């Protein structure tokens, strides 16, 4: 009876808290803590479906809400955007591309912060500068590549494209990417340093923050640039 009660208590432990039994089992039987944790969450006597839904649904709804707010600014510019085939073609690609940059910057910066404990601050500065240069070069190349592809597809599908529209779309694509990548870099480093100084692991919250910035920011910056140039 007592054992049953203790077991019930154990199953209610929040995932953030590793119970001491994890360490004891890990020590005694050599089973990794990761395996024990995975078994606790999705093991044979758990309701894995419920666990997955419970842990994911809030963040997914929040992400959808943020994206919808970004989409709201696009809806306002709909009349113009619908007539700009290259912008429409670039839209999903830009969202993916800048989102990937956000994930890369956040995860790399988090790793740099941990490594700087051993390698020192001057190493961190050097690595950050290198990452910034890499991301800037890559974002320029990839946005130019996306622009070229979208232009090519527009021409093939008989979209009447004047030189001035092509030039404006080029400026919008480069500006949109560079503005967002720099915002992402600033937010990641600023919040990352603050979290690290407070002894919080930046890995746990930098990625959701940067992806939310991309979801909302990309739509708003793009709509704003379309509004200015057209």
């Amino acid at each position, binding site marked *: 009876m007592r054992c049953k009660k203790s077991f019930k208590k154990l199953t209610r432990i929040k995932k953030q808290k590793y119970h001491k039994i994890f360490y004891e089992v890990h020590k005694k039987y050599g089973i990794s803590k990761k395996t024990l944790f995975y078994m606790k969450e999705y093991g044979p006597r758990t*309701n894995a*479906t419920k666990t*997955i839904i419970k842990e994911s649904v809030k963040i997914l709804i929040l992400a959808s809400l943020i994206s*919808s707010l970004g989409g*709201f600014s*696009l809806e306002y510019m709909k009349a113009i955007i619908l007539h700009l085939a290259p912008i429409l*073609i670039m839209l*999903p690609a830009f969202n*993916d591309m800048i989102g990937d940059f956000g994930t890369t910057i956040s995860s790399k910066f988090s790793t740099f912060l941990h490594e700087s404990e051993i390698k020192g601050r001057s190493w961190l500065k050097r690595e950050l500068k290198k990452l910034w240069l890499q991301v800037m070069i890559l974002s320029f190349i990839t946005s130019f590549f996306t622009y070229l592809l979208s232009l090519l597809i527009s021409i093939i599908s008989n979209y009447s494209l004047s030189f001035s529209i092509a030039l404006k779309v080029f400026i919008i694509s480069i500006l949109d990417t560079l503005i967002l990548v720099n915002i992402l870099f600033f937010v990641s480093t600023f919040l990352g340093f603050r979290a690290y100084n407070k002894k919080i692991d930046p890995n746990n919250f930098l990625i959701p923050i940067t992806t939310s910035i991309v979801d909302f920011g990309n739509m708003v910056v793009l709509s704003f640039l379309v509004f200015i140039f057209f």
Partner: protein
Amino acid sequence: MKIIDKNFKEMMFSQTFSIIGGVIAGTFLAIYTEKILLIPGMLIILPGFLEMRGNISGSLASRLSSGLFLGIINPNKFRTRIIKCNIIASFLLVVIVSFFLGTIGLLINYLVFRKLILEIFFIPIIAGIISNAIEIPLTIFLTFHLFRKGEDPNNIMGPIITSTGDITSIFSLLISLVIV
């Protein structure tokens, strides 16, 4: 300082992959503009709908990868309890999030644009179910296949899911428009 190193090349590869997928999805979006985007409120739900696919399938691939690496999931067995639970959870999550997206679209349309268009509520739900029916088996199959080949699915599945997710999402939106 060496800028073009292994990291740079890896980032370039994954970006190229996701750009191609995104451009294909964007091309369909541009071709079928009149069908998809002329419905008021579609641009409100579109970014969230495209993102939902990547978020749900991405988490699914990552959970399966962890299970495979830890030896809890057998790479040669598909019909196990843990995989069934993952499939059901992913399906239910899509329905819940699509329902939420539809409600947001309907509310914003009504409150801001003073238009009551019921299609905007049903389109994401139907499209979500259709795209899930394609994307979930694809994610499971590719994660297992990559693991069996000795690759780390965590490094490869991200760009694959975002690219294929965009394309299947646009296709499913088109099919749901025909149904609605």
